[in-house]
């Protein structure tokens, strides 16, 4: 692990700059055609902290939120939801009713630094950053969707947002699933935070718990691609046996409460759009 750190740290700036484009290195035709159709309103707020400026600029140049907007066109929200990138003073900021949903520059910074310390090579660094940033964007957007659609939430809302994000990640082809889930999984495995005592009073879930929530849904959605997770015992058999149930449950919840707001024709268009064109061939 230590050698990886040395190697990756040098390449970090380059990787981060060249590859931080979670939804692809281009603007899909869909985004150019119909951003006005989306009920997602986006903004990039300029940070006051100069250290975060490069992140702000990168996200903006790479149209990260525009691509989220395009990706979300099938979702016909009854009112506008603002998703913004902003300086928060922390890696996350709590979603408040009426929004906006916020992707913090600090979180992107945290992800980039974490990946630089751990990624073995450029490909995995690329996948890790993109996957983790997409996780962040989808997780924050999920809170907004719950609010706008007045979705009843059984269980903890942060877990619900993770489960919705995981479901979305696994519905757009195996390449998208692999890239987003792998990045997300690495983010949580590498986080290295030890939880003990009153840490557990947080409304946020421990990273390892989040890892298993994502991994379980991914395994159930695509058992062939993620069979390693179970064969190597990363997901213990006990949990793996019940992942199908977990996956069916979040699908059912989605079908009951969110699907009625999805335009089926636009969904087909989004599914037909290649979203992660940089995904390395493996």
């Amino acid at each position, binding site marked *: 692990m230590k050698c990886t750190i040395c190697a990756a740290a040098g390449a970090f700036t380059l990787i981060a700059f060249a590859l931080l484009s979670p939804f692809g290195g281009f603007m899909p035709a869909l985004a150019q055609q119909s951003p006005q159709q989306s009920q997602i309103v986006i903004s990039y707020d300029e940070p006051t902290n100069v250290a975060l400026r490069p992140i702000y600029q990168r996200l903006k140049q790479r149209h990260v939120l525009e691509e989220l907007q395009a990706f979300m066109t099938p979702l016909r929200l009854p009112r506008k939801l603002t998703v913004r990138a902003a300086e928060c003073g922390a890696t996350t900021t709590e979603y408040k009713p009426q929004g906006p949903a916020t992707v913090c520059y600090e979180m992107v910074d945290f992800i980039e630094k974490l990946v630089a310390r751990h990624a073995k090579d450029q490909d995995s660094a690329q996948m890790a950053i993109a996957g983790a940033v997409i996780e962040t964007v989808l997780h924050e957007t999920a809170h907004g969707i719950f609010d706008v659609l007045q979705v009843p939430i*059984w269980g903890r809302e942060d877990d619900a947002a993770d489960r919705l994000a995981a479901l979305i990640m696994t519905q757009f082809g195996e390449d998208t699933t692999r890239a987003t889930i792998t990045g997300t999984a690495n983010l949580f495995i590498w986080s290295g935070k030890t939880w*003990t005592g009153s840490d557990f*009073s947080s409304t946020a879930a421990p990273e390892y718990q989040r890892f298993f*929530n994502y991994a379980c849904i991914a395994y159930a959605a695509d058992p062939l691609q993620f069979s390693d997770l179970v064969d190597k015992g990363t997901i213990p058999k*006990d949990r793996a046996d*019940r992942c199908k149930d977990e996956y069916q449950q979040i699908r059912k919840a989605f079908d009951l409460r969110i699907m009625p707001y999805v335009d089926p024709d636009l969904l087909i268009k989004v599914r037909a759009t290649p979203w992660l064109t940089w995904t390395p061939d493996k």
Partner: protein
Amino acid sequence: MSQSNANATRRGVGLKSIALATGLVLALAWWTGSAAPAAAQTPLPVDFGNKKIILYEKEKGDGGYWRTGLRADAKPLSPERTALRGRMMKRRVLEDYAEFLSPLRLPSTLGLFASDCDGSAWASPYYDPDYHIINMCYSFIAASEQNADALMKLQAAHKLWTPVSREQLIAGLFTAVLLHETGHALFDLLNVPVFGREEDAADFMAAFIALQFGKETARTIIKGFAYPWALSAYPGGGDPRTTKPDATDPKYPKDPEAQCRLDPFCAFSDEHGTASQRMYNGLCLAYGGDRATFQDFVDAGWLPPERAKSCPKEFQQLSFAFQKTILPFIDQEQMKKIRAKRWFLPQEMKDK
């Protein structure tokens, strides 16, 4: 404790794997088919007004309190279990529970019974989604009593908590587990969209229901829920260890499941929250739903102020979910009667 509690809340899927492994499926066939006369549904002795909730008898006249475990070749009850069965019958646990559920308009029949389950010492109540049954295991009463004794000893020695009595702990713990299983049953039978983790959601259901029957009932159930989790809320107990175990230790288990529980990463794969998380969630929802009644838990430092701040909002979200997904299935007239009834005995609601 952590062992029994982990099992206390594991739902019917666990049973399914046991069933496959032992041929229990065959043993169960009698109560799904019409061939066996013993499977006849017992009309409830009092006016529950709900045909969808029944007590399953194994032998005619057992009232749903089986004299055996689940398997066809299960041994007759031991004298200890026979005594537990007698106490449950006397306390009318099944009848009370059936009556308690009677306001529900269920689309399919829910069967209730008590049995020796798999015969082990740690079997605990569970809902089985395949058969739509809730089975209360006799052993869980014994386990609840042991837990209560352990807690009372700690309480006496350390005065860690708000005063509590043994009877209150037993009644509260048993009820909390039953309400948790009720949550699983309702999510399944009513086709409820569950966006969060179902095991948390079932705890949330228990906490929400606990708060609908007045201050004393609420305190009994919430204490019965939170105290046992507090007892096991330490690394390597009900919370994951923070360091890797010594795999060369002769005591290091060979069973992969046991190894997983000892591993600081793998332990987080449990679908249940950690002991600490479950304790904090339960207290938070209770405090969020009724600040006056549970203020002493916050004052005593059980619930950190930072979490306490968000609890009213968390309870509101739970209440909204209940209103949206469960309330439409509740008969309000019947509910009034159920809410007016005292469910616990006076000694079960006493703090000391």
